[in-house]
């Protein structure tokens, strides 16, 4: 029976290929050092073979990693289909670039050619890295958006209930109404922090330290998440208040 291709499967493919890459990188290092030391034809051939293998595996890591990200994006409920499609398209383009690059590595048989091909992938990976961070940011933002929408839905339901109780006049609803306002405030604050995170993510392309810029965006998202936690805890307070007599 064919195994379902989900995120777990894609992720384990990536980890498997990453381990292969690390092993091939060590072999490349050894072969390179031997060649530089002895400069023999045998050591040159060995260096060529190990370099080819390592570069192939490196491309495979990028391909499997971008596939894992793609699947993760598919399983994310909060993003609009337009946002998803743009990221899908970009991830697919990166995948295609590295697949093509693997074919070129296969066709080339000199260390000079491989060095040039390696320079090409180094340049390309700078763009890939930006896309990776943008996609990760979108995945986390999607989670936040989805949770915020669900909280917003519960606020709406509670507002209706509180309005109904106020009309009946058999319970004081002023405290519940104040909590509702607080919950709404927290949702707004959560949205603001998410906006801040998105602004940080948009700076990644020009950032010299991409990882730091990404971490700053992630810190804003975590604050955004904290506001969601607070908003939901207020909803629990409102329910408790409504269930208790004055």
């Amino acid at each position, binding site marked *: 029976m064919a195994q379902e291709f989900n995120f777990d499967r894609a992720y384990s493919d990536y980890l498997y290929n990453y381990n292969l890459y690390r092993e091939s990188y060590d072999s490349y290092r050894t072969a390179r050092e031997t060649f530089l030391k002895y400069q023999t034809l045998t050591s040159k051939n060995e260096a060529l073979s190990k370099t080819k293998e390592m570069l192939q595996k490196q491309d495979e890591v*990028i391909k499997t990693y971008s596939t894992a990200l793609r699947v993760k994006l598919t399983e994310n409920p909060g993003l609009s289909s337009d946002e998803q499609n743009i990221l899908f398209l970009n991830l697919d383009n990166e995948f295609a670039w590295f697949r093509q690059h693997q074919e070129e590595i296969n066709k080339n048989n000199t260390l000079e050619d491989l*060095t040039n091909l390696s320079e090409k992938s180094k340049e390309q990976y700078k763009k890939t890295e930006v896309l990776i961070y943008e996609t990760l940011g979108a995945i986390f933002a999607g989670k*936040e958006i989805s949770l915020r929408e*669900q909280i917003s839905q519960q606020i709406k339901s509670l507002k209706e*209930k509180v309005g109904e109780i106020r009309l009946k006049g058999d319970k004081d609803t002023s405290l519940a109404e104040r909590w509702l306002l607080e919950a709404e405030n927290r949702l707004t604050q959560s949205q603001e922090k998410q906006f801040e995170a998105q602004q940080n993510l948009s700076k990644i392309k020009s950032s010299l330290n991409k990882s730091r810029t990404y971490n700053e965006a992630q810190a804003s998202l975590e604050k955004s998440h904290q506001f969601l936690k607070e908003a939901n805890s207020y909803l*629990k307070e409102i329910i*408790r208040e*409504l*269930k208790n007599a004055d």
Partner: protein
Amino acid sequence: MPIEQDFENLPPATEKTAVHKKLVVFTSLFGVVLVLLLAVAIFTGFNQKDSSQSTSEKPTPTTAAEFKEEITSPSPYATDAALLKIEEEVENLDEKIQTTDLKESGLTPPALEMGINFEE
């Protein structure tokens, strides 16, 4: 001056040995009793330690009851179906919020050594 010894006043040799024997027997008995008491004390101590260990290894299973504030004076809405439904959804949402992973450290971009060279 010659030293004189009053041999008549000396206790007889057999009497001296008997006293000595009694002393030895008494000391031995005392020693044995002391050792026994020590052994009993050590044995009891070990038993107590063992029982305390077995207690910590096998804790009494407790049912971790989730804390819920008691409603001492319920309002007319304490059993309201619509409110209970919202409560259930809010609780589910709370669990989702608490378990959301905003780091996904496994998805950190792979560490790759880009670029090669064959120059010393």
